[in-house]
């Protein structure tokens, strides 16, 4: 259901907020007046809106130590939905999603009286507001675009927003693929077509399926079960097929020793789901007889690259097991790092490196080391060591690094500081990518991808494993705990 207004504000610390985009829907506003009755608050001018919003988000008075409206301990924000106070009353529910310098803002229509505040779950348009803002965010793509690109996209935005959301009620949220304007093909179809823009063949018919798995880990070398690791994966797809109403089935297979996929979430273009796929969940205790494939996803492909499905999984061991010991005396630190690649993991990396940062210690002046494998580099700002392990672990699958780091005694104001890594609390962070491999074992190939058409499309399937937050904490000092076990 509809929204009353959409905005993009920009804000940098120490500067005033500016309006980058704004769109109001007066007919919806008129309805809001009718529904909200005495609790109705009109939308103020953009400038007032941005000022009050920034204040509510706690982005003003940067340098002040304690400001009651911002720092009061009983003021606990629970969602990205805010209530803004204006002379005319309270404006609620303002959904504000920050992304870099930008803040994406939407005010959905609430079809009832606003006092007392109804729970968000009961507001039909709140999820549309989320979807619209994410659509806008994806289109503007603040994080990956140049300034020129962003201003170009902001300039295109008014027209696109009017196309996907002409009168406040969104018909689509994908701004990168607005409804097609020009198409002279007049096909006489027998059945209904999907409402999203589907693939249209240009060049050879082709289906690409990418499996990207990421692995998190936190290791302490404490000898107990406090180490944690988690895998999560994304299946991305890009189809280039001839007709518009093309059904595709992508199947994922697990080998016999593979780890079942959990928490599967699928893209809305998937036409049906086998309920047994959804049973395995990281929330409930897993049961041994869990479904383990093949996972089948029938769908009607959108024209662009899209995420067919997300999943998580629990694998029995982390791919690389490590320990890290660091002790210091005065301006010297002794370090010792040991990494072991598990034998079941493919020993062929695109890259593999270990970063060893030193916080709150000053700049490195001197470094002596012995590494059984790979090269060592010092970062430009002299606060981090980089152990480049390369493409392969040696035959023993085990590598070690020992060394002594000497720090300069002078303090520089720009020395890296981290509130967590005080004293000897420190970590090694691993970065690696293993191409053509997945930790769960999950894969797809041309036999598991079906297309119902006469011409067989070319099928490209690939997979990769990438490290994400892969930390090995210094076992000689206290380390932050990430996970709590209730089962002992």
């Amino acid at each position, binding site marked *: 259901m509809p929204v009353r207004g959409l905005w993009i504000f920009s804000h940098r610390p120490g500067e005033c907020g500016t309006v980058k985009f704004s769109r109001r829907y007066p007919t919806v506003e008129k309805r809001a007046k009718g*529904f909200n009755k005495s609790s109705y608050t009109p939308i103020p001018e953009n400038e007032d809106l941005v000022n009050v919003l920034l204040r509510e988000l706690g982005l003003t008075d940067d340098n002040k130590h304690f400001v009651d409206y911002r720092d009061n301990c009983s003021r606990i924000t629970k969602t990205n939905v805010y209530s803004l106070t204006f002379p005319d009353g309270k404006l609620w529910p303002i959904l504000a999603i920050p992304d870099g310098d930008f803040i994406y803002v939407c005010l959905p229509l609430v079809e009832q009286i606003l006092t007392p505040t109804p729970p968000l779950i009961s507001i039909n348009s709140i999820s549309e507001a989320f979807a619209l803002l994410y659509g806008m965010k994806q289109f503007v793509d603040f994080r990956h675009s140049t300034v020129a690109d962003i201003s170009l996209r902001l300039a295109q935005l008014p027209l696109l927003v009017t196309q996907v959301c002409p009168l406040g009620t969104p018909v689509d949220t994908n701004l990168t693929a607005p409804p097609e304007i020009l198409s002279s093909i007049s096909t006489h179809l027998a059945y209904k077509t999907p409402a999203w823009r589907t693939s249209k063949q240009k060049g050879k018919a082709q289906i690409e399926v990418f499996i990207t798995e990421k692995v998190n880990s936190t290791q302490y070398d404490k000898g107990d079960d406090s180490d944690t690791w988690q895998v999560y994966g994304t299946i991305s797809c890009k189809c280039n097929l001839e007709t518009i109403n093309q059904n595709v089935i992508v199947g994922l297979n697990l080998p016999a020793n593979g780890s079942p996929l959990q928490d599967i979430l699928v893209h809305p273009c998937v036409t049906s789901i086998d309920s047994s796929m959804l049973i395995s969940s990281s929330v409930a205790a897993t049961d041994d007889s869990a479904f383990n494939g093949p996972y089948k996803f029938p769908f009607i492909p959108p024209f662009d690259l899209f995420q067919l499905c997300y999943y998580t999984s629990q694998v029995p061991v982390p791919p690389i097991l490590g320990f890290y010991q660091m002790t210091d005396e005065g301006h010297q630190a002794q370090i010792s790092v040991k990494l072991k690649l598990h034998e079941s993991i493919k020993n062929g990396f695109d890259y593999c490196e270990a970063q060893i940062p030193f916080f709150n210690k000053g700049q490195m002046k001197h470094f002596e080391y012995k590494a059984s494998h790979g090269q060592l580099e010092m970062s430009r700002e002299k606060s981090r060591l980089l152990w480049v392990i390369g493409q392969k672990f040696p035959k023993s699958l085990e590598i070690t690094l020992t060394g002594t780091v000497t720090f300069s005694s002078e303090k520089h104001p720009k020395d890296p500081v981290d509130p967590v890594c005080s004293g000897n609390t420190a970590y090694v962070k691993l970065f690696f990518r293993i191409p053509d491999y997945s930790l769960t074992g999950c894969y797809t190939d041309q036999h598991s991808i079906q297309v119902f058409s006469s011409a067989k499309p070319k099928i490209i399937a690939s997979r990769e494993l990438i490290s994400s937050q892969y930390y090995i904490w210094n076992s000689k000092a206290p380390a932050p705990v*990430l996970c709590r076990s209730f089962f002992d």
Partner: protein
Amino acid sequence: MAERNSIGWVKNVATFHANPRSFLSSISVESFVDDLLKDLKSESLNEQTKVLMLDLFLEFPILLCPEKSSGELTAEILISILQQMPTSIKSINLRCHLLLAIETVLITTDNFNWNCKVAQDFASLLMHLISDINDRKQGSSNRPLRVTACECLRELECCYPGLMSQRLEHLYTMQQQEVTTAHQSYTLLYSVALKNAVQILAQKEGPANGTLKKMLTSNDSFVWSATKDMKELQLSSGEQLFMLPSNNETKELKSILALLLEDSFLFTSVCQNSLFWQITQIVAMVRTISPVIFKSQLVRLFGTKDISCFHSILQMKAVFTDSLFTAEDEHFLLQRLVGMTKHPLLSTPVKLFYLDCVLHFPENRPLNSNPGENLPVLLTVQMTSSLFPNIFNDSITMLCRQNLLSMVYLENEGYRSEKGIGYLFEHLLALYSMVDKNANREITATFFRSVYLFVRYFNFCEKHMENLTKTLLELYKSQSSLALYFINLINETKILLEFQPWSVSLSKGLQSYIVNLPVESSTVKFLPWHLKILSRVAQETNIPQTSTVLFLRRLVFQSDLCQKGDWGLGNALLSVCKHILQHEHLNVVFMHLADLLQHLMHRFEDIDIRDRSRLYYILLTNVSSDKLCKILNMYPMGGPTKTRSLSSIMTESENFSTMVTIQNTEKTILCLCPIHDEESALLSSAEVSMEESMADEYRLQEYYQYLEDHRASLLGLKYHLTFKGDVEEKYHKLSCIVLQFDLTHSKYEEIDNINIMRLYADRKPPLVTLYLVPKEPHPSVLGVNATFNTENGCTYNSKLDPLHITFPEHFAPLPVPPSCPLDVRYHLFGSLWHALQPDDQNQCEESIFCHKMSKETLQEFVQSHFSKFLVSSQDHEYKIAILLPPKFHILMNARYREDAACFDIRTDNWTILPYLNSYLRDLSHNT
């Protein structure tokens, strides 16, 4: 009004958008709308500009058509424009926008009704447009227009429920026949009309048999009576819906709904949500249709990653509870929901929304009807174990998870819960150790919030609360500057737990720590914070104050506090005394307090403090304690004399609003208008050089020394202090104006107050020069406050609009000592250019900026924007040197090369490059 060509209109529309009211205040609305409408017909404007112009009608119809009649007229003209347009593919965007503009104008100006012919024409036009099923007549190029027309009708039906309730069969037929991508809009239009029609039937008491069937097969015209009053929109929450008596005719309706649902997977996810919501409401009203018709959709929705689709299933759950969801389904849904609150591939705002949904989960059998946060009965400790907060979470997630888990552990008893509470406490300690090591503001605030939550839920756990108090005391010992957080925590927990002594024990602990401090420099350093705490503690009636008074006495007697005579400290001291004066057990500390006050009134080197000590002393020694409280808490009855006499009893911690000698003006009455200084521009036209040798002598080192010596005066911005708009007469003659600057974002070093003798409304505004010493030459904002006297002797304080200091306002020409010739800058440029060579060690950076322009434009460009900073110009090569006070530089070598101007840039502060870039880009775009 600017020119009425494309560029002029683009500009106009942008200015309008930026601030509609101020734009319209400067011109006549009617003539502006006339021009708009005229130029929409004109052939000289391109489609794109016209679309932009129409956007104004889409967004600000009421401002443009303030009256009903002007709305009607505008709509009529827009329709005629639409009808005269050729139906080419090119104009499709414009035609869609025209439809939307007409719709918006008609609805918002209350013209959509039976009496308005334009409205009737428009409605028929829309019906005509959507009747071209499957692009048969107009071809697929016209499809966007059909979709827009459908959306217009849907909006009309939403605004005027029942408008299309007599044309359901027609709409249904079209919905069934349409197979192109437009089918989604037809279906949604039908579903809204159907829902409204059912609702109207449901509202009528006991509709006769056959009415439902008649309604489904109706094929009349619009029901214009629906447009009568829009205010009576039906609220859409579940309980308010009416029920229909059961009968056999629901069979047909059921099959229609089933067909609608069958195609739902072909819709975009937001439209699926809309469709499900309409059908949900229908099924909720027509009790003879079982919600089981949704069953076939559930599995797909259970597994979706899309927020709209998942929200749909949650809403169905809320409406249908156990008539659609078995206990097993409910458990499964909750499990999915919890899984989504922590799914690593979903974004944080979405996960927070799902966390909120968990706490408002619509249960089949809720235990209570409390509208606030409720824990679902099915949620167990195990299910939430992976939601444990950790210090790597963002602060909102951290607190939300703590809140949820606290509720879980409180609800479920047993060893797991106890363990959980212990874990939460450990989490608190982890945050503590970060705050203890000087964490940033956000973490500090999060820690205190986390403490607040912990106290809220687990104040009965004595062991933990005792540890918590200890931890907090440790924190205060190492970070006394967090005093305000402590006071806030004490205040808030006191409100939270009325009869629980925890906040008192924390106060006691803080008191006993402070009063046992030795009188030495380290204590004095944090004295303002300690006194704030003591002042708060003194307000607790059941905490004895003897130790506090003794501490203060020791402090005053043993330190040089009195000799230094710091008003602020004296004030803080008196604030503690004032609260002790009101303390229930004043008699216990009577002697010591009298001693203290007496010492202050004789020795403190500040007359105000001495006076007030004397007053307190007299009150203490002469007035009974009942009266004392009354006097100290007295509020003025009004009248300026009273206001003033009482204010001297006040201390800074009080609420000043009713007892001020300085009053705030209601609105901003003053402003600082920047003056564009032309004078210094003359300097740059460097006179012919004198002797070169002299120039050489002025070395870089001397130059930097000069900068250092003059750092405070390098950047002077000039303003006129004037009245803002029309001000009341009492403000027409102001004197003794003091401007104070609030360095909100601390990009500048401290700025001294500026004193101005007078500002009279009928005289020339005084000139104000504001000297800034930027820490970083970035654009920034300054808060400005003015205090002044009016003619009648009152003192006012007025906040000015914040002063925006733009990036180019930080520019200054290279300063040269008066003794040196001006061409010294040329040489200086050379040496600086060399010195600003970037390398690994320094902050210098090189950059280049190119823009296509002719030789002449470049010359004009440099002359008009950089003449002040020009140090030489030869053969279309310009050297520009800009000082960014106090010590940074931008050096630019601008040359003309192959149809473009190239600026080689060097700077000794790379952080300014983005600003410089955008500045140059803006300038060159406007050239």
